[in-house]
């Protein structure tokens, strides 16, 4: 919980541990399918009545499935927080899961899968993700056409029983709220909620090597990943700062070298990607076929150049940008509620904006450069999508071994 009394809004996020990592073998996509079914009526409401209630409250809402959780979020004018929590209690604890709407729900899942085939960047990232992390952490949330066909009503009801449970669930509330009131309401609504996660996770190693997906597109999509540290790791902010120098802002290295100086692409970026157990760096660019090789080569050269260190002026600019971002989080109860929930999941506690700001102040180029020297970017995996595969024989060349 965080009080933001200067706002007019409040926002809540409820995470249940029904992430895609819990999808049973052979049924990838079950968490997403279940999240779709859960929203088809609950407690005293059928699905239309339920959405009418949310609209009456003016809730700006979303539902999404990540690898670890299924997340339901809503932002509302602050005085409606209790009514909104009450509605979400019904959604989480008493969903109807109407069997006669199963086939409609299946069609929804199929439509989503087909539309994803047309989203080339998504298609690339899905393939890349299998190379980031061991299964089940590297799998996509949407499943396959075959698995979605195979899901039964029984699978969905058991999934709710097994994973819409308080163990590892998170409720995060921010905005113009009173702590006592929220605690009392949540206690009333969720205090008697019971259940435990029903399965253990077993890991299998990620896919190895580079990969090309043949596609008749104007642009070639390029994805690069390499291992890094997770958010909970003491070196995370050093790794994150290095990637910030590489990609945050218009004066960052990738934007300058790939786009500004050479005009090779419109979109290029790199980011730290982290789940609870693992972390990596992921870089992306989209560029026309004939310029794709040069783009890949320049990107890799810039990533490898990080090992030589970053400069003070680069870090100062990055810090200014991050500081602005932190302070602007004060303007949004939604983004605060989502990042608190994420902190709780990744760290087991919430970092306040003051703590984050202090961590930021402590970061310096000496520490970053020592980190980079000890952990130079290497072990790259490259996935491309487009008309022609690229030459990846030089990918590790020049990397610090």
């Amino acid at each position: 919980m965080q009080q933001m009394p200067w706002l007019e809004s409040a926002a809540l996020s409820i995470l249940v541990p029904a992430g895609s990592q819990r999808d049973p073998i052979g049924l990838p996509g079950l968490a997403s399918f279940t999240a779709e079914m859960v929203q088809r009526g609950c407690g005293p409401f059928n699905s239309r009545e339920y959405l009418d209630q949310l609209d009456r409250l003016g809730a700006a809402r979303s539902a999404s499935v990540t690898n670890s959780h299924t997340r339901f979020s809503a932002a509302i004018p602050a005085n409606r927080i209790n009514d909104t929590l009450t509605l979400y209690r019904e959604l989480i604890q008493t969903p109807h899961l109407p069997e006669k709407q199963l086939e409609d729900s299946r069609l929804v899942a199929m439509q989503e899968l087909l539309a994803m085939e047309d989203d080339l960047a998504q298609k690339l990232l899905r393939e890349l993700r299998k190379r980031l992390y061991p299964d089940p952490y590297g799998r996509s949330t949407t499943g396959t056409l075959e698995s979605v066909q195979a899901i039964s009503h029984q699978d969905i009801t058991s999934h709710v029983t097994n994973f819409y449970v308080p163990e590892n669930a998170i409720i995060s509330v921010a905005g113009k709220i009173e702590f006592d009131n929220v605690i009392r309401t949540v206690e009333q609504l969720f205090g008697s909620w019971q259940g435990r996660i029903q399965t253990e996770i077993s890991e299998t190693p990620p896919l190895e090597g580079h990969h090309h997906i043949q596609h008749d597109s104007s642009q070639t999509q390029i994805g690069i990943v390499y291992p890094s540290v997770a958010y909970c790791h003491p070196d995370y902010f050093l790794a994150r700062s290095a990637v910030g120098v590489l990609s945050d802002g218009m004066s960052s290295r990738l934007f300058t070298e790939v786009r500004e100086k050479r005009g090779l692409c419109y979109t290029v970026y790199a980011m730290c990607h982290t789940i609870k157990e693992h972390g990596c760096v992921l870089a992306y660019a989209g560029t026309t076929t004939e310029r794709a090789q040069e783009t890949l080569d320049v990107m890799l050269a810039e990533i490898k150049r990080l090992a030589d260190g970053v400069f003070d002026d680069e870090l100062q600019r990055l810090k200014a940008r991050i500081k602005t971002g932190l302070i602007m989080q004060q303007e949004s109860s939604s983004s605060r509620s989502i990042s608190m929930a994420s902190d709780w999941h990744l760290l087991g506690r919430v970092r306040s904006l003051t703590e984050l700001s202090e961590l930021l102040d402590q970061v310096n180029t000496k520490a970053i450069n020592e980190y980079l020297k000890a952990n130079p970017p290497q072990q790259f995996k490259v996935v491309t999508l487009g008309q022609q595969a690229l030459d990846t024989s030089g990918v590790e060349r020049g990397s610090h071994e």
Partner: protein
Amino acid sequence: MSEVRFRHHTLRNGLQIVAECNPNAYSTGLAYFVKTGSRDETEEISGVSHFLEHMVFKGTPTRTAEQVNQQLDEIGSQSNAFTSEEQTVYYCAVLPEFQLPALELLSDILRPLLRQDDFDTEKQVILEEIAKYDDQPPFGAHEKALAYHFQQHPLGRSVLGTRETVGQLRRDQMLNYFNLRYSAGNIVLAMAGNVDFDAVITQLEKQIGHWENYDTQRDTPRAQPNSGFHSLEKPSAHQQYIIQISNGPAAEDDNRYASRLLALIFGDENNSRLFWEMIDTGKAEYAVVEPSEYQGTGIFLSYLCCQPDSVQEILELYQTLARDIQEHGVTQQELELAKSKVCSHIVLRAERAASRMFGIGNNWVQRGEYTSIQESIKRFQSVTPADLAEVLEKYPLTQCTSVAIGPTKIEHM
């Protein structure tokens, strides 16, 4: 909320400054709205407004492109720009203590050098941007639908331009266009959040008071109603994408409040008539209707995505639902829900200074008007079912230009 205050000032050269000042805000948003876009271009220079938007970041007599980028980052700004049919907008969100340096920088780049070398390199970036949208749903169908709907009307022109027009564009053509459109009188600076208005005006008088003001004109004819069906093939696509455009209220029409509520009831992405018939049933992947208002004319734009073998069914269903709302109107309950949805979202969005800045700038550029949050809410609350009926009568949803694109060509309906 009580301390929020609207301020307005016009420089001697005609450049207008509008600001919603809130001394308690955590940040400051500033945006230059240049009243120029694809509707002000000719066929030959199609795409020049957007290309120019990129070139504005490429340096001035006193700054290189690299310095512009570095300084925008140094002040920690979240900055960007975009071009539409009617506007080119350059914006920046910063912490309040950086508002004057941000303003100095943003003002400086609005008088760019347009170096030939930068022009040639940036042209490649624009061509990449065009290629990117070629690969992305709806694969150019949006531009095609606007072109079919508007025909000879200037709003039928694409914002990005084409490979050919951008490829052939010369620096001197861009410079001419700049000299015609970037007059001080054709620019509005909009600010929101923690704004030091007096300091802003003092700085601007000094820095840009010498910018010239000259006549800039724009034709604003009302578009003629149009209808027709066009099918395009994209063999690599998996889904079918359908864009439909019907006429709607213009930016200056008072019934735009009613039209926005109508669009929510008919085609919001959640809990609308299209949602229950098309999305909840899994017949379509996506089905949304949104109004777009321009000077002198407006449209309702619907965007549908479905499996290729159900196009016929989806188009017929759309027509059935459109006919039903034409004939029977909306219920009181639908209207009330739409109002609570829209009013709540106005309040939520207004919490970010940057989003308020867009609202204020847009309102001023389109109508020369400032509307407080409370006033916007009041206007939505006062809409009646009769207002919606009037919109439906004037702008029937059933009469539309449709473009479908996907793996197979669709025979005419």
